[in-house]
């Protein structure tokens, strides 16, 4: 594959007309790419759910995937840590390259993918175990047993997830006793505990109230210093608020219902100066 083909700078033709340059929009001039999605097509049996998607997901940035319901946002997200493997008869064409390695290559260990690419789900799903056990579940899977090390991981992960102060005195209580927003931060801490490189978030705040949502969004900003974050969201304001890059997806036509990438760009560009008519219609609320 032509390597340089994907390392070209993002083309923003209308920028100049606004008197802007790249660096006005992109905080670091040319970000490293953490995940390269290359010509990804995904089939559930005969149904083609995703068609020919190519995106570069930059390192230590928040990339949002937006689009109307049923356009394949979650499917795309779940293919990044091979959660779609769990659906019978799933077939994938193309590549997802994580730090130079195709995670769909034969022999690539799915456990390794999922350790490096963590996931936070739409509804908080703490295990019906204590807070402590929730956080240590992942590290234990990878053979960590020493109490002192586990204690350290629990404190560190919960602090990163901005939950430590609220739960430090009740680590042995069930994770189910927490409020919805706390449960979601516990799930984030649980994902952080295995020291992933990427965190996938599937509408992480859609089941939460506005205060809890704000906490999650603030948390994402602090997490992106150490992690690459990909978030699927229904909420365009949220995408505009939190993300650095935005991918807009849509189904190609109502019969085939294949999800396609319409536009991918830095977030301000998608929301203020979209290059595609469909993107413009969507972000201005004319449909969807």
């Amino acid at each position, binding site marked *: 594959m032509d390597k340089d083909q994907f390392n070209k700078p993002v083309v923003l033709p209308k920028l100049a007309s606004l008197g802007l340059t790249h660096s006005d929009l992109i905080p670091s001039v040319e970000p490293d790419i953490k995940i390269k999605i290359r010509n990804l097509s995904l089939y559930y049996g005969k149904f083609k759910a995703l068609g020919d998607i190519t995106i570069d997901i930059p390192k230590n940035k928040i990339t949002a995937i937006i689009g109307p319901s049923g356009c394949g946002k979650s499917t795309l997200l779940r293919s990044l840590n091979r959660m779609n493997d769990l659906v019978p008869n799933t077939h994938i064409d193309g590549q997802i390259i994580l730090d130079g390695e195709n995670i769909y290559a034969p022999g690539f260990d799915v*456990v390794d993918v*999922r350790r490096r690419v963590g*996931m936070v*789900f739409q509804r908080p799903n703490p*295990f019906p175990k*204590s807070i402590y056990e929730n956080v240590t579940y992942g590290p234990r899977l990878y053979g960590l047993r020493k109490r002192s090390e586990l204690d350290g991981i629990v404190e560190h992960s919960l602090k990163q997830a901005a939950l430590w102060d609220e739960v430090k005195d009740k680590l042995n209580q069930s994770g189910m006793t927490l409020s919805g927003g706390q449960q979601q931060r516990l799930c984030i801490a*649980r994902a952080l505990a295995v020291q992933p490189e990427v965190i996938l978030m599937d509408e992480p705040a859609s089941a939460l109230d506005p205060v809890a949502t704000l906490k999650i969004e603030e948390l994402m900003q602090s997490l992106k210093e150490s992690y690459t974050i990909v978030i699927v969201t229904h909420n365009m304001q949220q995408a505009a608020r939190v993300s650095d890059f935005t991918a807009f997806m849509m189904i190609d036509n109502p019969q085939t219902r294949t999800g396609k990438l319409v536009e991918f760009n830095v977030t301000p560009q998608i929301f203020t100066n979209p290059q595609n008519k469909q993107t413009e219609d969507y972000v201005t609320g004319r449909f969807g």
Partner: protein
Amino acid sequence: MNRVMINPKVHSLHNYRRKTTNMIMLVLAGVSTVIAIVPLVWILFYVIIKGAAALSWDFFTKLPTPAGVPGGGLANAVVGSVITVGIGVIIAAPVGVLAAFYLLSSQTKPFGQVVRFATDVIAGVPSIVMGIFAYTLIVLPQGHFSALAGGIVLAFIMLPIIVRTTEEMLKLVPNSLREGSLALGATEWRSSFSIILPAAFNGVLTGLMLAIARGAGEAAPMLFTAFGNPFMSVSLNEPIATLPQTIFVYAISPYKDWQAKAWATALVLIVLVFSLNILSRVIIWWRARQLGSGNR
């Protein structure tokens, strides 16, 4: 505007009919409930009254006396029931739970459907047929009745109950928990046993108790397998007495003393099953307390 006018006269008549119908159905439902409950309470009280009269400490500590000789107890049957039911549970519980996990993971696969259907069929097979089956399979080749054969036939009887209740309980665990575990890099096996089974624990335990209650009450298959034994035996290779089989033998005997003992045995059986259920409630309560409140 098309508005339906309500004739007050017709309306009040209609209203009256609605209320009457409601009243009649309410009374019918109440009467049906009473009809359903009366025999249950009746049986329970009858067994308690009749059984308690013949029950003494000797029942649990002494062995049966020959017909006509007063006194004695049925320690052998109590021990025998515990042994055979124990064997049944030890075999059926792990197999049943693992099979339930298999069924859960192969909801739509043809083989899973076949297994599920077969399980339902086996659950409907009369226990006496199970007894004959175990008789030809185990007792005939061995040449003698045995506690082991009794335990195995109870395992056959418990297995479909455990498989189906466990599968239903596992199904109730939200898929998001399984996904949460898999997303951390856990294997299916690990997710099943570390997350799904504990989450479904209460239901699985209740299903197990149901199976034990069913097994502990079986008399017919025991006649073909464990057979009965008037002496104390703890050997798996010897015939052994069990409570239901003892009830059968003593109740149809012509001796007043034995008939009274049959009542006492029935009471012991009921109390045994009842206390197992209490025990399972206590375990569930204790587990909930361990995790702090709010865990179901």
